């Protein structure tokens, strides 16, 4: 565990989380959320939980982003609030 590395990733995680909440365009919110998942995956792998990181990469960054994009395509692309 390298705390400098952890700190950088955690700051990026916070930034991407806030950005994905604030994005008006739902498609970009979905993409930023994928980035969030990928950063979390890096964090898990760095902390030694390789199995969790593997799952996060496959489910969080991969498939759930696709599901979000599919849902955005079939509903609306802009948020009301």
């Amino acid at each position: 565990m390298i705390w400098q590395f952890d700190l950088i990733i955690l700051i990026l995680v916070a930034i991407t989380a806030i950005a994905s909440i604030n994005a008006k365009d739902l498609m970009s919110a979905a993409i930023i959320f994928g980035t969030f998942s990928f950063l979390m995956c890096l964090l898990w792998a760095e902390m030694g939980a390789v199995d969790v990181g593997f799952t996060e990469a496959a489910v969080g960054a991969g498939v759930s982003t696709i599901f979000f994009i599919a849902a955005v395509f079939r509903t609306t692309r802009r948020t009301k609030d």
Partner: protein
Amino acid sequence: MKLIGLIVVIATGLLLLWGVTDFPDWADPQSPASTHLSPHFLTESIEETAVPNVVTSVLGDYRGFDTMLETTVVFAAGIAVYTLLRRSRRKDLREKPEMIEEELPHQALIVKTICRLMAPFMQLYALYVIAHGHHSPGGGFQGGVILGASFILLAIGFDLKMVLKRMREKTTLVLGILGVLIFSGIGMVCVLLEKNFLDYSALSAILPATDIIMARSHGILGVEIGVALAVMANLVLIYVNLSSDGKYERGL
């Protein structure tokens, strides 16, 4: 309204942070988890189950019941999306013709070629992840997700029809059910062999040339295959219904 939401979120966050102070310290050797549970799993796992990857043996064997119900959650999610979105009545299908955006032929060619080349390697890697879960990170869940993702990639690169030809509606449903059934079925076989539910050491009575320890290893493998089937089928089911609006005609 937004202000109230912000206050609630900050209050919840502070409460959670306050609750964290009650946790044992990071990697504290005196914490209950490090004094009772972890040493047992880390030292006895290989002797009790013959599985070098402790994560797999904990997931598949020591807390197998939990994993079984996780698989059931994935199955329930797939079935929920299917029942909510699937529209098979003729009136719904005729509703409105969809706009088809033609992409440029050379762009489509690049995407299709790359997807066609990628898909078999992804599937092979997924099978490796499932089968090699005993020795390296990975296992049924991750392998199943990668296997499902390969079909989703084909559905995006080509079109939905091409995937539906290979994974029919009925096939996905049956595979999703079969996965959960394999998992709980292995558990029930253990009960029929007069051991506890999901106590795989009972399987040594019916598997040829296995002692009690290897039977637990083989039981984990069987369970992982069930998890992989259920996850793969349900991911494809969710994607197909989401992307085609339940009409099974055109994807994204």
